[in-house]
């Protein structure tokens, strides 16, 4: 048996730290492991004993790229435990700030982290020398998303305005007016971005994923819905633990999620899109079909197109919400803590972010479980890697390494969130 070892010390253009281990025996991929060595920060332990009122600020710190996802799943869980539901203009404001996070996070990934893979650059800054307009458009989109988050949340990273029951202070219509103007321009830039990425060359690669996402009676899912899959799952978010389990593996500080008795599944843009295409406005559906996509996309390399389409959607949805916005009479609904358990699940840019909290009568956390999107996707990413690597194991180490890194970036993994991710080493025996 011939032995060959390739090692990459740190996966780049992902959020957080991890490595990849690829075992090749006699020209066949024997095993693939994503090694997440991001140091665990132990949020589920440190949250115990904290007040419900502090929770949105603490869980935001799980992720600097998608703090709103953590804040929103948490406030929904708190309200669920205390028996209230936030609807009307307060809910619209929540969906609005969440649109800002989708725009900011997706623009960062599409232009700064993922596009360089397709065009052969190490980063967006080098890419800007030949594709300056595209990079500047991407930055302008990201800026528009951040402006929206700042207008409602006070700042784009770890916004300060979200609380259980609603907000500390609701914005006036006048405060949203400048954002409306930049979003209208952002919507046009996003359409241009879709056309640009749709023109990339995509490897002819598809996998038969079990997609899991939220589904709402009449909206593309962001903050509410039932948990559904393309293989028959259709449950209330409170029943997540009856259908899904987390397993700990020796090679990762991230826990691996699986559908009980079935295995790997996929969350994120491909899943949301496949399960909710009919919930997209006609404008976005038309843009998708002009970009060569059907109602389902199983090629993870084309996730970049789906993300760009979701930016268009988020811009349109934000514009719709702003046009309809009337400031609520109260910035937050009154809350009365009580002992009990609450569940929250919302669509982070990378996929569903599920939370469960047990509170005592004063609203102090007794136990908490948080399932971030990347730990749910880790088994599917490993399966993608095995499938991507199998036909090219005889190619050069560098080609193999680049292909594997790209296969990982397809899913926009957020390793900081999941640790509880990537050095690449290929062992050939």
């Amino acid at each position, binding site marked *: 048996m011939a032995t060959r070892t390739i090692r990459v010390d740190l996966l780049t253009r992902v959020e957080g730290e991890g490595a990849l281990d690829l075992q090749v025996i006699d020209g066949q991929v024997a095993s693939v492991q994503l090694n997440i060595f991001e140091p665990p920060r*132990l949020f589920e332990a440190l949250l115990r004993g904290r007040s419900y009122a502090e929770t949105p600020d603490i869980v935001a710190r799980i992720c600097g790229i998608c703090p709103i996802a953590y804040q929103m799943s948490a406030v929904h869980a708190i309200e669920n435990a205390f028996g209230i539901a936030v609807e009307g203009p307060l809910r619209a404001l929540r969906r609005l700030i969440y649109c800002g996070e989708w725009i900011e996070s997706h623009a960062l990934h599409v232009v700064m982290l993922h596009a360089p893979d397709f065009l052969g650059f190490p980063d967006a800054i080098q890419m800007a020398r030949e594709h300056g307009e595209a990079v500047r458009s991407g930055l302008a989109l990201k800026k528009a998303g951040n402006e929206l988050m700042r207008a409602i949340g006070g700042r784009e990273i770890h916004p300060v305005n979200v609380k259980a029951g609603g907000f*500390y202070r609701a914005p006036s219509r006048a405060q949203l007016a400048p954002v409306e103007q930049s979003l209208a321009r952002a919507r046009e830039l996003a359409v241009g971005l879709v056309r640009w990425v749709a023109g990339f060359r995509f490897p002819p690669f598809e996998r038969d994923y079990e997609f899991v996402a939220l589904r709402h009676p009449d909206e593309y899912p962001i903050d509410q819905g039932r948990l559904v899959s393309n293989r028959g799952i259709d449950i209330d978010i409170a029943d997540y633990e009856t259908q899904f389990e987390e397993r700990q593996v020796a090679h990762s500080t991230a826990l691996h999620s699986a559908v009980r008795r079935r295995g790997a599944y996929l969350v994120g843009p491909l899943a949301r899109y496949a399960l909710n295409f009919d919930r997209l406005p006609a404008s976005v559906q038309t843009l998708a079909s002009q970009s060569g996509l059907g109602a389902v996309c199983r090629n993870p390399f084309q996730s970049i197109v789906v993300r760009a389409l979701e930016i268009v959607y988020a811009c349109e949805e934000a514009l719709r919400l702003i046009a309809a916005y009337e400031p609520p009479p109260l910035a937050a609904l009154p809350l009365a803590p009580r002992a009990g358990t609450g569940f929250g699940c919302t669509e982070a840019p990378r996929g569903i972010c599920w939370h469960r909290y047990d509170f005592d009568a004063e609203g102090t956390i007794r136990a908490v479980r948080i399932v971030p999107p990347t730990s749910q996707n880790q088994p599917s990413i490993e399966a993608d890697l095995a499938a991507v690597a199998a036909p090219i194991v005889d190619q050069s180490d560098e080609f193999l390494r680049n292909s594997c890194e790209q296969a990982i970036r397809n899913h926009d993994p957020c390793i900081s969130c999941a640790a509880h991710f990537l050095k690449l080493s290929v062992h050939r025996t």
Partner: protein
Amino acid sequence: MPKRKPRLAVWKFASCDGCQLSLLDCEDELLALADAVHIAQFTEASSAVEDGPFDLSLVEGSITTARDAERIGEVRRQSKYLVTIGACATAGGIQALRNFADVREYVAAVYAVPAYIETLATSTPIAGHVPVDFELHGCPINKVQLLEVISAFLAGRKPAVAAHSVCIDCKLRGTVCVMVQGIPCLGPVTHAGCGAICPAFRRGCYGCYGPMESPNTAALAREWRSLGASARDLKRAFRSFNAAAPPFVSESEAHGD
């Protein structure tokens, strides 16, 4: 001969990535910055990873593993200037709550097989391990201050970053004091830099920029008590994103177990 561009590196330890994201969030300045400096190492943004030495290293995150305690030493050896960015690197971060607990119990609460997890009993700031040239506060840092710090170090001058409390910024902003409206606020003891956002949103500052220079935390705690805050409220307030900052550690310990 063209002047050599200064070499910049960005490093990550235990953190949420938010502070290094602040650099990518400089949408209007990023391409100009990339012209002024050579970004030699920034793995979140680039696959081009170069070896040192570096003129300026920006360090995000706290030290929570034996491997990271060794790695920060190597970063220091390769860096002319080392600047910490954010509350994790400067004061241990929210993960420093383990410093007041039994980390084995913490790990067991999260993982079914704790033996697979290698972590230290404490989360400590970078300055606890290596000399640091400047500490930029905040959870997250302010990107305008970040650009000032980068510019200052590359120009060989001291960064113009105010060390006063959030109170001064509320006055400058014209925000009516929330304490006088009965809302407990950490602004009087908290380092400025955020722009005094929370009081402008009618909530008390929650101290995410950490302690200002010589804060009178005891006097503030008495004010909080007169507003009805409990010992537990005070303990929680001083034990958050800058839990390992000494003035906040001692004040938190003054309010029961």
